[in-house]
């Protein structure tokens, strides 16, 4: 039976296509994010420079200590050159110095890597000394019995583990590659999307097509069938994990070639608590990830077994994932709610973090190594969830009769022949999109955080004050004002007997005026420009990085809801082949599609209104709308904006773009649903297409 279920999975073309897409995406993601050119702003040397330099170091026949000396000397030399340059150029940093900075950053990175290796023994000694100190403190400290027992147990284990690792001899190993591999959320997302899709295909889609009812009437169609499905999913989970990690290793290896994997794991992760090679590290990492994915698959399985309707399956999944992420991200490790963070499925899946250092969990006063505890918990939970899912799967099929309680009211209703009205009813009421929109409204309310006042530094405060004086159309008077104030501040600074706090204030004033002067230089290059000090405009026009990141997170939630709504709007006509009936009528083609599009536009408008308008309104209310009709290029980050378009027009266009994005998702959802003819498959497809790029944007 397992073989049959496995054949079903392997023979499912949509699933295979989806897997290929996810694999491609994962590979391309690594290629894009790792094979980077030098980033001057973040002082990040290019991948090729790192590859070349570490490659040269590896081929050197010198010891690691000698390599470290060589790199440290190079770094010192570079620092001296840069300092001399700085002095000679009166503190001005030119672009041609950027290369020196990048090289310095590269040397620094390699020096850190070498120091980790050469200083390994010292680090272990420090840990052991700390353990001794804490042990002595414990003797005099005031602790409860359980807490004392835990601390003692933890310290003893720490001493045992790291004492036993003192004789490990790590060697220099360029770590960028392996570090890029571990705990990458994009790989996790891709794997989980594939497994979710597989569970949907094997359970919800089969149920939708009423195939499960058929199998349930057979001798082995209940418990055994459910077990076979679970086993097939477990096999798929193992295959997906291995394939995805192998692909990641291959792609990463092509950018940062792996040296011998037989070196001790401590060469890259000095606090790793296992005496294993890097190859062993990768194997254990894969195993932990596999158990984590298995547990997630089991959760998907039990949800799909318990809930028949796609809408409820989606809500349960979204709720479970949302709650887990929320608890993991929002709870502090020192809070009394910390167990909800540490005993959280997301923590279980951090295989890299588990392997990086020895960590303990307090289990009734006993220090249990998380590296053992979490994978065991994952396996136990996976078994428990699968067992619960199989039990739910084996239960007798219960068809909930459609209630006719209000049929007397329905009889009295007058009919109408408006296709749009009928389509609205079908989508909003019959497909329960109204409920989805209501839940989306709750999310929108929770996420509605207009960009408000922030804590300002002293120079920002002065910048604000000075800007109030010159805001408006940019003229020569603006420059004159800045120049005069600069002179005044310079004079104050030169006055004898200026105290330190006054110096700080004057420096802040000077910084603010310099910043203003830079802005006016920009404005001078543009005709009819305005001096604008309104961070609200900056935020709503995409010039604030923090707000942009928050918008990406809001988009992730919004697009998930949009995908569900649009797919459900379309799928009502595919459930029992109603499309055939519709297409044979005179208005069943153009007019019908037009109505579907209008319903989609209506839903998009409601979602847009719920998610995007309140923060916009709130931000503009806080920061005001003065000079809203000034040219958009008056804002520095809108330098490239064409023509004399106003800020107002730019905001309108930007928000129109957001609405158009929703319409784009509508079209994609309609097309995919029409093609795959399954709401489940369509929702997963659309979510994968629109969500994963957002995850990448968020990570970068």
């Amino acid at each position, binding site marked *: 039976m397992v073989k049959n279920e496995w054949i079903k999975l392997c023979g499912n073309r949509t699933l295979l296509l989806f897997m290929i897409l996810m694999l491609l995406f994962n590979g391309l993601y690594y290629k894009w994010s790792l094979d980077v050119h030098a980033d001057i702003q973040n002082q990040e040397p290019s991948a090729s420079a790192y590859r070349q330099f570490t490659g040269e170091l590896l081929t050197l026949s010198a010891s690691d200590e000698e390599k470290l000396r060589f790199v440290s000397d190079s770094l010192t030399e570079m620092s001296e050159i840069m300092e001399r340059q700085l002095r000679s150029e009166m503190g001005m940093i030119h672009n041609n110095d950027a290369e020196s900075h990048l090289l310095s950053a590269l040397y620094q990175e390699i020096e850190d890597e070498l120091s980790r290796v050469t200083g390994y023994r010292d680090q272990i000694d420090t840990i052991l000394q700390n353990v001794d100190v804490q042990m002595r403190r414990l003797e005099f400290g005031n602790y409860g019995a359980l807490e004392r027992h835990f601390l003692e147990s933890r310290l003893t284990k720490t001493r045992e583990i790291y004492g036993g690792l003192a004789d490990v001899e790590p060697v220099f190993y360029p770590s960028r590659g392996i570090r890029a591999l571990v705990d990458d959320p994009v790989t996790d997302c891709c794997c989980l999307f594939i497994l979710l899709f597989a569970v949907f295909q094997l359970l919800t889609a089969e149920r939708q097509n009423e195939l499960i009812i058929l199998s349930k009437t057979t001798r082995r169609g209940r418990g055994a069938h459910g077990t076979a499905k679970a086993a097939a999913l477990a096999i798929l989970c193992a295959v997906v994990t291995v394939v995805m990690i192998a692909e990641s290793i291959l792609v990463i290896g092509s950018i940062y070639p792996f040296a011998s994997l037989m070196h001790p794991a401590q060469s890259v992760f000095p606090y790793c608590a296992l005496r294993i090679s890097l190859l062993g590290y990768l194997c254990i990492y894969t195993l932990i990830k596999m158990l984590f994915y298995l547990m997630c698959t089991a959760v998907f399985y039990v949800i799909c077994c318990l809930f028949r309707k796609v809408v409820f399956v989606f809500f349960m999944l979204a709720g479970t994932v949302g709650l887990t992420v929320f608890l993991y991200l929002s709870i502090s490790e020192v809070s009394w709610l910390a167990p909800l963070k540490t005993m959280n499925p997301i923590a279980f899946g951090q295989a890299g973090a588990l392997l990086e250092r020895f960590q303990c969990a307090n289990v009734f006063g006993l220090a249990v190594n998380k590296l053992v505890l979490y994978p065991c918990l994952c396996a136990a939970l996976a078994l428990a969830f699968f067992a619960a899912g199989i039990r739910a799967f084996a239960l007798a099929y219960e068809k909930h009769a459609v209630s*006719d309680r209000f049929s007397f009211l329905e009889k009295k209703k007058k*009919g109408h*022949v408006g296709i749009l009205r009928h389509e609205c009813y079908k989508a909003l009421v019959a497909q329960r999109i109204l409920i989805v929109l209501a839940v989306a409204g709750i999310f929108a309310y929770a996420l509605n955080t207009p960009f408000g006042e922030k804590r300002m530094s002293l120079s920002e405060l002065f910048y604000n004050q000075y800007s109030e004086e010159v805001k408006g159309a940019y003229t020569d008077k603006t420059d004159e004002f800045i120049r005069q104030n600069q002179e005044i501040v310079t004079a104050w600074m030169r006055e004898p007997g200026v105290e330190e706090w006054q110096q700080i204030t004057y420096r802040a004033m000077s910084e603010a005026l310099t910043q203003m002067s830079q802005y006016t230089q920009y404005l001078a290059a543009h005709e009819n420009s305005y001096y604008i000090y309104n961070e609200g405009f900056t935020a709503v026009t995409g010039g604030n990085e923090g707000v942009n990141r928050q918008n990406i997170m809001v988009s992730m939630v919004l697009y998930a809801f949009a995908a569900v709504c649009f797919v459900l709007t379309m799928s009502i006509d595919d459930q029992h082949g109603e499309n055939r009936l519709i297409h044979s009528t005179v*208005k069943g083609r153009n007019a019908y599609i037009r109505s579907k599009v209008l319903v989609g536009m209506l839903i998009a408008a409601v979602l847009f209104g719920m998610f995007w308008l309140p923060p916009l309104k709130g931000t503009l209310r806080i920061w005001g709308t003065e000079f809203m009709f000034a040219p958009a290029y008056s804002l520095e980050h809108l330098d490239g904006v064409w023509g004399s378009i106003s800020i107002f027009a730019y905001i309108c266009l930007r928000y129109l773009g957001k609405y158009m994005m929703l319409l784009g998702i509508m079209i994609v959802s309609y097309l995919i649903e029409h093609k795959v003819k399954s709401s489940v498959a369509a929702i997963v497809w659309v979510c994968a297409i629109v969500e994963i790029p957002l995850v990448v944007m968020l990570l970068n």
Partner: protein
Amino acid sequence: MAQHQLELVNLTKSYKGKLALDHFSYRFETGIYGLLGSNGAGKSTLMNIITRNLKCDGGQIFFDRAEAGKLKQTYLSHIGYMPQQQSVYEKLTLQRFMYYMAALKGMTKKQAAEQIPQLLDRVGLWEDRGRYMGGFSGGMKQRALIAQALLGDPDLIILDEPTAGLDPLQRMAVREMIRELAENKIVLISTHVIADIEPIAKEILMIRDGKLIKTLSLLTDRLEGESLEDMYIRLFQ
């Protein structure tokens, strides 16, 4: 009395190289026609092509001597179709479903309000109009689908297995209803149950492997002594 004509010329359709309809040609005039054939003979493919749910690989359809492709939407306004699958919206009440179909057929509210009670009464579902169709039995769904096919007084009625799932009394009632309707319409009925079409059909078309292998006028050919069932067995065995 208006006389209508549906002419199929060399209709061909294949699925992945397998011919489902092989140069099918026939001219239908006002009256009831039965399509007989084993499973997979090509009956449903033919009906789907006539209702333009499927595109044919070759051939043409003429309705009242005008090519269906050129008539576009007008052609569909002549059609009343009842599919083989029980394609009903489970979360809509019968009344809402009928009005929805009326809307799709381009009927006015007044026309719909006149016809829907009559049709529902005729198929015995008037009292159930306020119920959700998800709670209907198979026979009720079937009758609802027949009722919607007759909405808008179409000239060409295509019924795919109309009596499947009906009890003997209902089958008789449906048969009588079709007979009454067919006065000035073309009615195509696809079925496996010979007894359902034998008393009412003007002609029987026997299809095998996508080809029309025999046409039988029940007014003349039956006089030769062999029953329709015997003939079917002889031809298809």
